[in-house]
């Protein structure tokens, strides 16, 4: 692991840029219960351009709990590098102390106790307040949305993203890019895009048949006398990680060569002074792209849900990781003169929902969007005795609950739950409402399948997903976590080559080794195959939770990770 000093020195040495970050300081104040909105928003306005970045909101209109991961392993050149630094190592790297609001916002440490002290985070009405305050400083600040905005809640599912579109429109974004948006189907995306007052960017989205650009690749903005090119990059592996049949005529991909061409085009033909990449690549993919594609000043990263209190500098490129679920709003002030970036100041503003006042107009809009569904949202299905969370490379208690439900309700030997990174947390003792359940499951291909697979096929699935996560070349990574497994334990060596990472597969019911030739009954959900049949996952889990009344998830020790 690198030390904070190395991190900062690397950042300083990498360019002549003078900059500063304003992450520290609010810890002790909050502990003294004297933290104010003004202090959270405090910022020394710098230069002539301001970017505001939000990403991966996953339809979370209201404040949420969101526990950051304990295990987030980096491989290859990313090993031990941010964002693959968690818990106490994270605190040491950035100079934060345990028990502070920073520890609560950025790590999993003492999560339950700190959550009770510091409250929920996010809420788009609070995000609106932050955005408006920044605009009060700099009226022409650009608000850029990194995508995964329209999916992830009961109301988003019920309105096919319309609730999020309506509320985000009230925040007046200047551009967005995309990923889960396309799981409403390409026709729905196009229907919404036609109504937007801002561009829906994706330089890497092509017509699959003719290999022609399918969406606007970039938009040029004039701000503070600066020509700013904002290039969009959608999630590269939509047709692989999500159902291709929902957008059959589109092709995506990393397309590094295309990015090189678009950067050259905006620099040379459009005369851009500043090039900003609004990306849904995932952090490690962006780190590699920054090192290989010259001419990008700022990458606003997304997809992998990382939150870093300071930008990472690669060559001359600043990489921001602005968190997820509305927990943070990033502000980046830039000093651009004579066609070059001369300086910057950054702050990842934590949206403490009890400190930042909701914007009344947006709060009213959110309530109006939710009102038609109030009864369904509020129905209590049961109670959780345990912390329910999702993030982590190998498991999370939300998915343990889902896997337990799949095994019991679907009478399966083994359950599989995809390694999604969206889905907020619930504290021990809290009721599980239907809204909470949908926050962990709401999407457009929820069928809970039930099938038979041989031990050999199960091994192949685990190896395949492990390589999507741990391939040492980031361009081959898809950015999710490991598929969550119920009813079966295994060992994994993330640094082994494809086909040799997984071993010791064991049927937990009787402790027997998984037999490659034997068939096992497997239940799962979110298959990317068209025509998958089964009840919706939320119905399976609802029935399980209602039957149990109180759910309890024991610590999961079924995945043994080499070197840990």
């Amino acid at each position, binding site marked *: 692991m690198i030390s904070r000093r190395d991190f900062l020195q690397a950042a300083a040495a990498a360019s002549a840029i003078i900059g500063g970050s304003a992450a520290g300081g609010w810890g002790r104040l909050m502990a003294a219960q004297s933290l104010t909105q003004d202090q959270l928003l405090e910022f020394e306005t710098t230069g002539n351009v301001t970017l505001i970045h939000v990403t991966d909101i996953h339809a979370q209109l209201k404040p949420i709990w969101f526990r950051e991961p304990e295990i987030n392993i980096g491989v290859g050149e990313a090993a031990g590098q941010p964002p693959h630094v968690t818990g106490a190592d994270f605190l040491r790297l950035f100079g934060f102390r345990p028990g502070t609001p920073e520890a609560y916002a950025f790590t999993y440490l003492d999560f339950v106790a700190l959550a009770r002290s510091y409250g929920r985070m996010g809420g788009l009405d609070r995000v609106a307040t932050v955005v408006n305050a920044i605009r009060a400083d700099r009226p022409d600040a650009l608000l850029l949305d990194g995508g995964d905005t329209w999916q992830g809640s009961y109301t988003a599912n019920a309105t096919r993203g319309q609730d999020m579109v309506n509320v985000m429109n009230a925040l007046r974004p200047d551009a967005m890019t995309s*990923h889960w948006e396309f799981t409403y189907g390409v026709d729905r995306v196009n229907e919404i895009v036609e109504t937007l007052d801002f561009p829906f960017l994706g330089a890497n989205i092509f017509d*699959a048949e003719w*290999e022609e650009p399918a969406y606007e690749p970039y938009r040029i903005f004039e701000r503070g006398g600066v020509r700013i090119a904002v290039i969009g990059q959608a*999630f590269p*592996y*939509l*047709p*692989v*990680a*999500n159902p*291709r049949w929902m957008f059959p005529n589109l*092709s*995506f*991909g*990393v397309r590094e060569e295309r990015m090189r061409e678009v950067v050259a085009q905006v620099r040379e033909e459009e005369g851009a002074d500043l090039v900003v990449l609004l990306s849904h690549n995932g952090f490690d993919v962006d780190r590699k792209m920054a090192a290989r594609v010259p001419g990008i000043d700022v990458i606003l990263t997304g*997809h*992998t*849900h990382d939150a870093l209190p300071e930008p990472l500098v690669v060559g001359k490129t600043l990489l921001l990781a602005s968190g997820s679920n509305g927990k943070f709003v990033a502000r980046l002030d830039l000093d651009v003169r004579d066609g070059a970036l001369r300086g910057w100041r950054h702050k990842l503003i934590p949206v403490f929902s009890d400190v930042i006042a909701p914007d009344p107009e947006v709060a009213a809009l959110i309530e109006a969007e939710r009102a038609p569904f109030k009864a369904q949202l509020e129905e209590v299905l049961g109670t959780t005795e345990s912390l329910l969370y999702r993030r982590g490379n190998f498991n999370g208690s939300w998915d343990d609950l889902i896997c337990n439900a799949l095994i019991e309700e679907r*009478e399966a030997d083994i359950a599989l739950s*995809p*390694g*999604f*990174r*969206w889905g907020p947390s619930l504290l021990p003792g809290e009721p599980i409402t239907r809204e909470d359940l949908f926050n962990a499951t709401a999407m457009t291909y929820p069928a809970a*399948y*039930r*099938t*038979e*697979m*041989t031990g*050999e*096929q199960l091994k*192949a*699935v685990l*190896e*395949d*997903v492990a*390589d*999507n996560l741990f391939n040492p*070349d980031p*361009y*081959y990574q*898809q*950015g*999710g*976590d*490991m*598929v969550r497994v119920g009813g079966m334990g295994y060992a994994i060596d993330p640094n082994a080559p*494809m*086909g040799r990472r997984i071993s010791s597969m064991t049927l937990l019911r009787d402790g027997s080794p998984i037999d490659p030739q034997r068939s096992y*009954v*497997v239940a799962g959900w*979110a*298959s*990317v*195959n068209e*025509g*998958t*049949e*089964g009840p919706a996952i939320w119905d399976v889990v609802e029935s399980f939770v209602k039957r149990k009344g109180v759910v309890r998830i024991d610590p999961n020790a079924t995945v043994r990770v080499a070197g840990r």
Partner: protein
Amino acid sequence: MKLNRRDALQLAAAGAALAALPAGALRAAEHADVEAAIAAFAGGAPVKEGGVEVEAPEIAENGNTVPISVAAEGAEAILILAAGNPNPDVATFHFGKLAVPAASTRIRLAGTQDVIAVAKFADGSFGRAARTVKVTIGGCGG
């Protein structure tokens, strides 16, 4: 115990395709075929690394039709091989003197493998390059 036959078939098909992927022994046997095809194309002349570009997706969106492009400044012909296919031979493009020595096509890939391009230049020299294309079932993007 009710089994959904359609799901079972789909998952089994995906599983079966996957099971064929990391077959190292198979690849070694095919490796000899590929090197033989390159030697035949080069007429036994040495083939250096580089001088030709292969563009292909890192991960195939659909293994049945993977778009690939090749280009080589000054090439008379470019041979394309899919090293892991049962029949590795994909295509050979010949370029006239006035043609731009670049070509695009779509190929079917049986699994994760290298796509290899070998260019023949006017001076009788040869160059080669490869790109790994991964074929995966996917399904778990964040």
